[in-house]
């Protein structure tokens, strides 16, 4: 991977040779040396990063552009004017505000407005993920693995890698914006004018740039790459939730719409392409990114290579009594992630729940179509709580799948081998890990139910909502477990295919969130695992569905164990 670095050393510079070095570090070093040197070797570093990312970069950028093309063409083809008009009401409901955006211009809806308003935020999330992983990969991961030391030992400045990574990220975002403009412009949606299309795409790129800068800062704190990217992910989740709450308020003409202005995702949506066509919110992105980069450079200049700002403290000399069994180890290894998820899920649930009151108050003024979507006759409050149960099931599925993926990371990190080399059977290890994850998912669902229940009860004054909320959320755990078990089964047989779980998950989530809106047949919608348990309290819980999902989960876990007992372990 370090070919470019190595080639600069292939021919050692001769002392009697007056010409500057063949290319790369030496020449740039002298140029940068005059400028203070903290950016020496920048051009070489950028070329090197582009070389490393010669597949990754185009895959991300083309992938997101292709997703844009897919949304634009699919919606553009499926929706006729009549269908679109019926969307007007639908797309203005508070749930759509929460998951999609403020819905600018939906009262006089057009295809481009619909696509930008409903799908734009998901493209922004994709761009943010692209930037978080890119920055982490080229900065903290390099430091953690010790490769940064090899680079820094050459004529490279202290901030070269960070700045080079940021420039590569900016380049990726620029390429993304251009390709997205083209993909959207020449789609079946036929958006006009071109400047609005560009504004929309530039907003997505601007969000990407902000999260590149966010990751540059969060990566400074811990010596551990996962902590840095995890923190950046938490900022992204926070940005999504805050603008969601603001937009939910906005579509109900509430007075909390300013919340959207606290989020970089919100700024991009506030450009309102195809409606207001405001360019100035992009300046907010620019300013925030610049400030964050200055902070990152400042922090980086103060710390040692490969060190965090937060120092490692000494720990226990002896293992506690619980750390004696595979179950104890699995719990210990998943503990910190579960703690953070618990905090996040509970906070989110209380916040979401506390919007129940506002929802109930505005229900009187809502058109019957929306009432219908929100759970119909059972009333808007029950509908909202039932929907939240399903919504949290999706979020917590992400936790469960990530936790099972951790099992693979353990194996690839050669940490499973010494455990199995002790008197621990394979079934015992796999089941211990699965058990901790499954109970963790159950715990998080209960926590979400409690949070939503407390929020709902406080905002409406009706504590009768608490019990049903907890029950409705808890029941949805069955759906979470199916995808968890699928990941376990894939781990047992073909760990390399574990990513398939994400595809099934994404499919189920899209079907559940957008399927009804796309007016798909109920039979197709029912292929989503999240649509079977029933959105209690708005709908009845289906005991058969819960038992069926539990049965499927059990079978999948057994398959996983069978597979794991048979296969070779991944070794160093």
């Amino acid at each position: 991977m370090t070919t470019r670095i190595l080639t600069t050393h292939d021919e050692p510079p001769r002392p009697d040779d007056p010409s500057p070095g063949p290319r790369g570090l030496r020449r740039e070093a002298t140029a940068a040396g005059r400028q203070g040197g903290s950016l020496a070797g920048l051009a070489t570093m950028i070329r090197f990063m582009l070389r490393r990312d010669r597949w990754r970069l185009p895959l991300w950028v083309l992938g997101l552009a292709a997703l844009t093309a897919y949304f634009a063409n699919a919606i553009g083809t499926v929706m006729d004017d009549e269908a679109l008009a019926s969307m007007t009401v639908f797309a203005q409901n508070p749930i759509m505000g929460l998951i999609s955006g403020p819905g600018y211009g939906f009262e006089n809806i057009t295809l481009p407005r619909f696509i930008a308003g409903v799908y734009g935020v998901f493209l922004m999330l994709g761009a943010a993920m692209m930037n978080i992983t890119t920055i982490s990969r080229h900065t903290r991961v390099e430091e953690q693995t010790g490769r940064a030391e090899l680079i820094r030992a050459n004529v490279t400045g202290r901030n070269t890698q960070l700045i080079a990574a940021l420039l590569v990220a900016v380049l990726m975002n620029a390429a993304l914006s251009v390709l997205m403009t083209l993909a959207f412009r020449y789609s079946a949606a036929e958006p006009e004018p071109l400047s609005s299309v560009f504004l929309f795409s530039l907003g997505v790129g601007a969000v990407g740039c902000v999260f590149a800068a966010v990751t540059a800062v969060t990566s400074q704190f811990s010596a551990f790459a996962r902590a840095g990217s995890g923190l950046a992910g938490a900022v992204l989740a926070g940005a999504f939730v805050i603008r969601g709450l603001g937009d939910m308020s906005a579509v109900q003409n509430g007075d909390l719409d300013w919340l959207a202005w606290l989020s970089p995702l919100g700024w991009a949506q506030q450009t309102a392409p195809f409606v207001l066509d405001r360019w100035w919110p992009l300046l907010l992105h620019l300013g925030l990114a610049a400030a964050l980069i200055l902070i990152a450079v400042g922090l980086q200049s103060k710390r040692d290579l490969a060190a965090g700002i937060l120092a490692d403290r000494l720990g226990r000399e002896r293992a506690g009594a619980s750390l004696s069994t595979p179950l104890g180890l699995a719990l210990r290894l998943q503990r910190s992630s579960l703690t953070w998820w618990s905090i996040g899920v509970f906070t989110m649930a209380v916040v979401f729940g506390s919007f129940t009151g506002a929802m109930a108050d505005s229900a009187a003024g809502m058109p019957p179509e929306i009432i219908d979507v929100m759970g119909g006759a059972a009333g808007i409050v029950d509908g909202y709580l039932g929907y939240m149960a399903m919504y949290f099931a999706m979020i917590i599925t992400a936790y469960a799948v990530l936790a099972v993926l951790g099992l693979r990371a353990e194996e690839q990190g050669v940490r499973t081998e010494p455990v199995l080399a002790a008197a621990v059977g394979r079934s015992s290890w796999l089941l211990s890990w699965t058990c901790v994850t499954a109970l963790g998912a159950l715990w998080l669902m209960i926590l979400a139910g409690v949070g939503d229940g407390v929020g709902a009860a406080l905002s409406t004054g009706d504590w009768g909502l608490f019990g049903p909320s907890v029950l409705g959320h808890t029941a949805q755990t069955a759906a979470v477990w199916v995808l968890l078990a699928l990941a376990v089964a894939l781990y047992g047989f073909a760990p390399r295919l574990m990513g398939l779980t994400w595809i099934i998950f994404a499919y189920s989530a899209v079907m559940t969130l957008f399927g009804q809106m796309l007016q798909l047949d109920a039979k197709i919608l029912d292929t989503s695992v999240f649509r079977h348990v029933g959105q209690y309290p708005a709908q009845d819980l289906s005991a058969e569905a819960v038992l069926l999902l539990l049965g499927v989960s059990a079978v999948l876990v057994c398959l996983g164990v069978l597979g794991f007992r048979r296969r070779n372990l991944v070794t160093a």
Partner: protein
Amino acid sequence: MITTTPSEGPAISLTDVVKTYGRVRALDGLDLEVARGEVHGFLGPNGAGKSTTIRILLGILTHDSGRVRLLGEDPWKHAVALHRRLAYVPGDVELWPGLTGGEAIDLFARLRGGVDDRRRDELIDRFDLDPRKKGRTYSKGNRQKVALISALASNVDLLLLDEPTAGLDPLMEAVFQECIREAKDEGRTVLLSSHILAQVEALADQVSIIRKGRIVESGALSELRHLSRTAITVDVTTDVPQLRTMDGVHDLERIGTRLHFSADTAQLPAIVRTLGEHEIRSLTATPPTLEQLLLRHYDDTDSNDQPSDTQILTTAQSPAGLTSRSFTEVRS
């Protein structure tokens, strides 16, 4: 499941074991036997199949054909029961970033069936390890110490050590050697895979040399020495013409009054008798080192068939009596 095992019979026995990864034959009919209570050196360059063999013995990898017995049992079927009776140290220890070294030591030992606390503390002291540090802050050598301490503090019959001292400094290497001698005195069996020849020479009773997935030489170190050549330098006033025609004399060379040659160890008595008839001012005989034993198996093939072969040769110290032919040939 606890199984009763006959206490006689070899500790480790592999017969005609084949392991393939796709088209690559990692083990190609490997035979290996380790008797109970012995320290068995397992030598070979990187990629020869040492780690694969040990992982098959652990029941972590399957094998395609052949028979594998560990303490009399099939390690794939009875992995858990067997693992109560053995401890394993890999050459590249990975620890959990958030667990301290002390926690990892206890965890491994407890998962094996128990830890001798007094022994654990004594070993931590001898290996000079701070057990309160987190796994991510340890250097390679310290991670290695964690696995070693945990293995040595467990009361087990068998130690499977796969290049266990990679990254340890010479002081710690000495502590390690002491500990292995103690383990031997306590009657434990040790399979010590290594490419540090001095370590194997100092510790092992028996040695097996692996090359490309096959055992090419196996036996007591003294027996193996017998098969090899002794380097001899004689300062003698007159020429010794008989040497030119004698069996067992190789690469004879005369520089000034000094004769250099290498002698088949089996022919030494005859050679010494012949030399005895001449005016000898000094005589130096260097017994074959393990390097030479290894080189016997690695210098007679193409130099480019396996890069790691060359690495072994060039890092080995050139023994005085080793033929210059073998070195130049392999290095070219």
